[in-house]
């Protein structure tokens, strides 16, 4: 997977139109790099809805159970102490901390899942195709299968050209 073609757009609407055209011709788009999230691109590229919400839910559930359970354990089993005549199982008192642990666990589990799933980690050294994609360029990447002929490559390039792309480059 080290051969690919890149092409850039300067406008997200043209990009979306172009992508639709290229896809319609049966080319598989490896990735699109953009300076900001482009609305509707998920549908065009056929990206699934993220499952990070489930991670957050599970994290939150664990947080809630841990938070509440720990407090209940401390107060009723580990070391029950009479505080101001309140019951050992002082449920209303446990809510705030349990809530905080819920949020903490949910947020952190999800963010870590996001970073790990996306391989976004400190010191990560990505391939930077074009430094302008974080500025105003929208870059389309189409993989070129190993052993593809130049013909096939130029077909892709042509399709991109027709789809209004600018600055088409082939990288091996």
């Amino acid at each position, binding site marked *: 997977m080290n051969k690919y073609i890149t092409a850039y757009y300067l406008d997200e609407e043209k990009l979306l139109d172009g992508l639709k055209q290229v896809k319609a011709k049966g080319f598989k788009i490896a990735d699109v790099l953009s300076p900001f999230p482009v*609305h509707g691109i*998920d549908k065009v590229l056929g990206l699934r809805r993220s499952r990070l*919400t489930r991670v957050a839910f599970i994290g939150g559930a664990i947080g809630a159970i841990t938070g509440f359970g720990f407090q209940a354990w401390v107060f009723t089993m580990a070391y029950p102490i009479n505080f101001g005549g309140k019951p050992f199982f002082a449920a*209303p*008192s446990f*809510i705030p901390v349990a809530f905080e642990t819920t949020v903490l666990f949910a947020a952190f589990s999800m963010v870590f899942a996001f970073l790990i799933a996306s391989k976004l980690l400190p010191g990560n050294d990505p391939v930077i195709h074009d430094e302008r994609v974080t500025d105003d360029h929208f870059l389309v990447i189409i993989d070129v299968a190993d052993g593809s002929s130049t013909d096939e490559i130029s077909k892709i390039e042509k399709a991109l050209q027709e789809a209004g792309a600018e600055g088409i480059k082939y990288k091996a």
Partner: protein
Amino acid sequence: MENLTFTLTKKIVTICLIMVSIGLFALVYGVVAGSGGERIAANILLNNYYFLGMGLIGLFFVAVHAIAESGWQVSVQRIGEAMSTFIPVAGVLMLLFFAFGGLHSIYDWTHPDHIDEILAKKAPYLNEPFFYIRLLIYFTVWSLLAYYIRKSSRELDSLNDIKYFHRLRKFSAIFIVVYAITSVMSSWDWLMSIDAHWFSTLYGWYVFMSMMVSGIALIIIILYLLKRMGYMTHVNNEHVHDLGKYLFGFSIFWAYLWFSQYMLIWYANIPEETIYYYDRLHEFKPIFMINIVINLAFPLLVLMTRNSKRVFWMLIPVAVIVFIGHWIDLYQLIMPGAVGGEKAGIGFLEIGLTIGYLGLFFLVVFYSLTKAPLVPKNHPFYKESMDYHTNY
């Protein structure tokens, strides 16, 4: 092309009238079965307050979105406007109810022989003339503002002049300010003063939020009914999703206020406050528990996913249950003080009367819906609302 004119069919009217007569029958039943004047009176107050609340929340929904310059709600704005027509109806019923014995049946402070040292201190506020004056002020102001908001909204649509948009916003702003004060005060007057010795600063906001949740639930229900009748086709999943998020969010916010009030009183353990929950936790324990479960746990768990907020088959059961749930919430606010554990109950009187009020409410709302197109096409945000889609 979508049908924008709502027609009040005979079928609707008939159903509503049947419901109303069930209500009247329940009232008669209550008298005959000897439920006691207090219980009957408390039920009238409960339903009257509840459906008044629905009317006010309908208006609040319109007003708050107007001043927030929100766009999407234009698609369902007419429902809120229609709900607000019930305000004067509730006002007349309330006045009649209080004037014909309701006041004395419910409020301890109206009985001179029940006045103790603390109630005597409150007398400058809790006295009958001032009570009626406040009541009249509330209803006059609410009804007038409801009328002007509806009027400017309809004129904006029919006359297509942006100045009506600004007028709508102006009245909305006035209403929000007035309502911020009167909603709190009216809840003190009509609900908190039932337990005349007790007080809580949060009370007004808590009641408001309870009404808010069920108001949103009712908007969803009405929207669904209209859709079933073939109207409101312009309303898509995105709009429903937003309403669902409201239902979800406000349910949590209501629970937050519930918790805040309960926990603080539980914690500080000062008898003049705890007595309120003490009564509810002893004689009304099932109601007290049901209240939390169906108004918090149920919407929280069901509406957590994205899809459940977007599809009616998930949303409608939640809306209905939450609507009933907040009726129960209001029940537990009123009954322990007004009726007491021994006499109170939920029987045909309660259910029948609620059905009656619901029938009356629907009658008024549906009648009001015939007065204007179901969606204001000339609203400046109409297009925004129609082109409404979101990733989340």
